[in-house]
C-alpha cells in the first residue's frame, strides 16, 4: 500500500514529519554514521547568530530526572562562517535544511537573515524568540506578544523565505504569543523551546550550571509541550511543528494528533543517535499496518 507521508510545514512540503531540533543535531553530518540523513523530513541546524559567540562558561549541562538542563548560550561561529564553510557541506544531504536564527537585538536577527537571503536553497528560517533581549534588560523577546511581534515583523520585512517561529514555553498563555507571531507573518510555529529550570549540588551548596538557571528538555517536558501544541492548534491556522521530549513513535503520533503537522526530535538524539532514522521507518510501518494512506489525516485528529 502506498502511503503519503509528506506534510506542509508552512508553504513548503517536506517528505515526512520527522525533523531534528536545533542545538541537538549539530549541522547534520555528525549523525551520518547512525542515520540515513536523506530519509529525514528536515534538519534544523545549530542556532546561528550574526556575530560569532563563545557561549556560556562550563558547566553547561546537568542531567535531571528524564531529561537535562542546558545553558550552552548559542556558541557558534556566526552566520558568515556558516554560509561559507558549513552550508556547502550539508546542502547535498538530501533533506530540508532549515536555519535557526537568534539575536540579542532586532537588528541582529535582521542582519543574520539578510546574509541567509543569499542562499536560494535555504527555503525556510526558524526564528528563535527565546533569546534574551538585551535592550529589554535580558527578558526574552518571546515572553510577551509585543516582543514576539517586534522580532517577527522585522524578520518578515527582511526576507521572502518562509519563517517558522520557535516559541518559548516560559509564558502565561502560549496562545497569545502564537497568535501574535501568526499575525506578524509567521508561516509556521515550532514549539516548545526549553523550559526554565535549575539544579543544585547540596554538598557544595552551589548551582550545577554556570548560569544558575538553564533550559529543561527531554521526556519530562512532553506533557507540557503536548498541552501547548494542542492549545495553540485551537487558535492558529498556520502549521505547528511540535517538539518536547519525543523519544518514540507513540510520542510522534501524540503530537500529530494534538495538532502538529510535523515534529522535531531533540534531546533523545543524545540517548539514541539513530532515533530519527528509526522513527521515519516506524511511522511508515505504522501507517501501513493501520491502513492510513495519508499521514495528514492524523494531524489535529484528537477527539475531545
Amino acid at each position, binding site marked *: 500500500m502506498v502511503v503519503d507521508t509528506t506534510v506542509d510545514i508552512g508553504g513548503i512540503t517536506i517528505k515526512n514529519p520527522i525533523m531534528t531540533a536545533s*542545538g*541537538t*543535531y*549539530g549541522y547534520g553530518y*555528525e*549523525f551520518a*554514521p*547512525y542515520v540515513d540523513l536523506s530519509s529525514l523530513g528536515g534538519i534544523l541546524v*545549530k542556532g546561528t547568530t550574526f556575530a560569532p559567540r*563563545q*557561549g556560556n*562558561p*562550563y*558547566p*553547561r*549541562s*546537568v*542531567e*535531571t*530526572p*528524564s*531529561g*537535562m538542563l*542546558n545553558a*550552552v548560550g548559542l*556558541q557558534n561561529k556566526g552566520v558568515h562562517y556558516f554560509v561559507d564553510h558549513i552550508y556547502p557541506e550539508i546542502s547535498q544531504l538530501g533533506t530540508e535544511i532549515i536555519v535557526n536564527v537568534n539575536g540579542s537585538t532586532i537588528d541582529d536577527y535582521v542582519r543574520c537573515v539578510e546574509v541567509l537571503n543569499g542562499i536560494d536553497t535555504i527555503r525556510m528560517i526558524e526564528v528563535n524568540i527565546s533569546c534574551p533581549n538585551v535592550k529589554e534588560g535580558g527578558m526574552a523577546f518571546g515572553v510577551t506578544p509585543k516582543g514576539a511581534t517586534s522580532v517577527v515583523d522585522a524578520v518578515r520585512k527582511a526576507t521572502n523565505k518562509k519563517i517558522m517561529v520557535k516559541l518559548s514555553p516560559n509564558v502565561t498563555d502560549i496562545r497569545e504569543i502564537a497568535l501574535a507571531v501568526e499575525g506578524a507573518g509567521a508561516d509556521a510555529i515550532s514549539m516548545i523551546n526549553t523550559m526554565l529550570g535549575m539544579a543544585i549540588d547540596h554538598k557544595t551548596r552551589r548551582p550545577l550550571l554556570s548560569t544558575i538557571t538553564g533550559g529543561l528538555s*527531554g*521526556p519530562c517536558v512532553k506533557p507540557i509541550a503536548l498541552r501547548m501544541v494542542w492549545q495553540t492548534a485551537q487558535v492558529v491556522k498556520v502549521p505547528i511543528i511540535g517538539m518536547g521530549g519525543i523519544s518514540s513513535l507513540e510520542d510522534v503520533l501524540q503530537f500529530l494528533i494534538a495538532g502538529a503537522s510535523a515534529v522535531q526530535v531533540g*534531546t533523545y*538524539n*543524545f*540517548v*539514541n*543517535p*539513530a532515533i530519527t532514522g528509526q522513527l521515519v521507518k516506524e511511522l511508515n510501518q505504522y501507517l501501513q499496518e493501520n491502513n492510513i494512506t495519508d499521514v495528514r489525516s492524523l494531524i489535529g485528529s484528537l477527539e475531545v
Partner: protein
Amino acid sequence: MYSQKKILDCTILENTHLNDSYFLMLLQLPEEGRVCSFRAGNFVQVYAKTPDAFLRRPISVCSWDKDLNRIELLIQSVGKVTSHLQMLQSGDVLSVQAPLGNSYSTSSDFLGSRPLLIAGGVGVAPILLLSQELLQKGIQPTVLIGARTSSLIVLKERFSEVENLFVTTDDGSLGHHGNVLSHPIITEGKEIFTNVYTCGPRRMMQAIGGWAQEKKIPMELSLENHMPCGMGVCLCCVEDTKEQGNVRVCTDGPVFNLESIKW
C-alpha cells in the same frame, strides 16, 4: 585517525570487581563492530537501562582485541549509571556508541624515543592501551601509575611487558610513598624523557604539566567533562583553550596538548 562509528549492542563476557568502586568489563562487540578501530584516548558512550538515569556516560577504552573483536572498559562507580553498570553480569547486553574522541599522538611528529606515561587512579585505562600501542611500535615506554592507596592501583599486572613500571601511593601502601611528581624518576631527573602522556585527576595533570613545561617536554593529557552527547553536537562539554576558545572535549579532545590548556 578516523574510524567508522557505530552504536553497538555488546555482550558482557566478564564484569570483574577490582575493588569497592572499580570494575573491569570485557565486552564482545557484534560483527558490525569489526569496522571500528580503537585508539588510546578514545572513549565510548555507554547506556544504562535504569529509570534513574537518562543520558549515556563516557568511558575510556582500556584495551582492544582486534582479532577477537573485544574491548575492555575500566569503570569507576560514582553515580546512577555507573553503579547500575557495576551490577551487570556476563551475558547481559550493553549498548555502546563507539569509538568517540581523538587519541594520543603516536606518530613521529610528536612521539619521541623515550616517552613517559603517567596514570592517576582510573586514568590508568587509556594509559594501558597507549602502552600497548607503543610496545607494538617497538618502543619501551616508562610508565608511572599513582593512586591514593594500594586498592586503587589497578591493572598493574597488565603492564607486564613494560620494563620500567613504577607505582606510587599517597599513603605509601604500595610502591613509592607520595604523589607521582615526588617519584625519583621525576625528582632525580636521571632519564630525559622525550614526551609525556598522562591521564588522571585534573589537579594531577596540572601539576605534571607544570613540571613538563619547566623541563620543556611536550605533553598530552586527557580531559573529562560532562558529555550529554559525546559526539560534538550539544556543545556542553566545552573547555576554554588558549587559542581556539571553547572546544569540545568529546570531539576536539579528550586528548589535548598541554600548550592549549588554560588551567
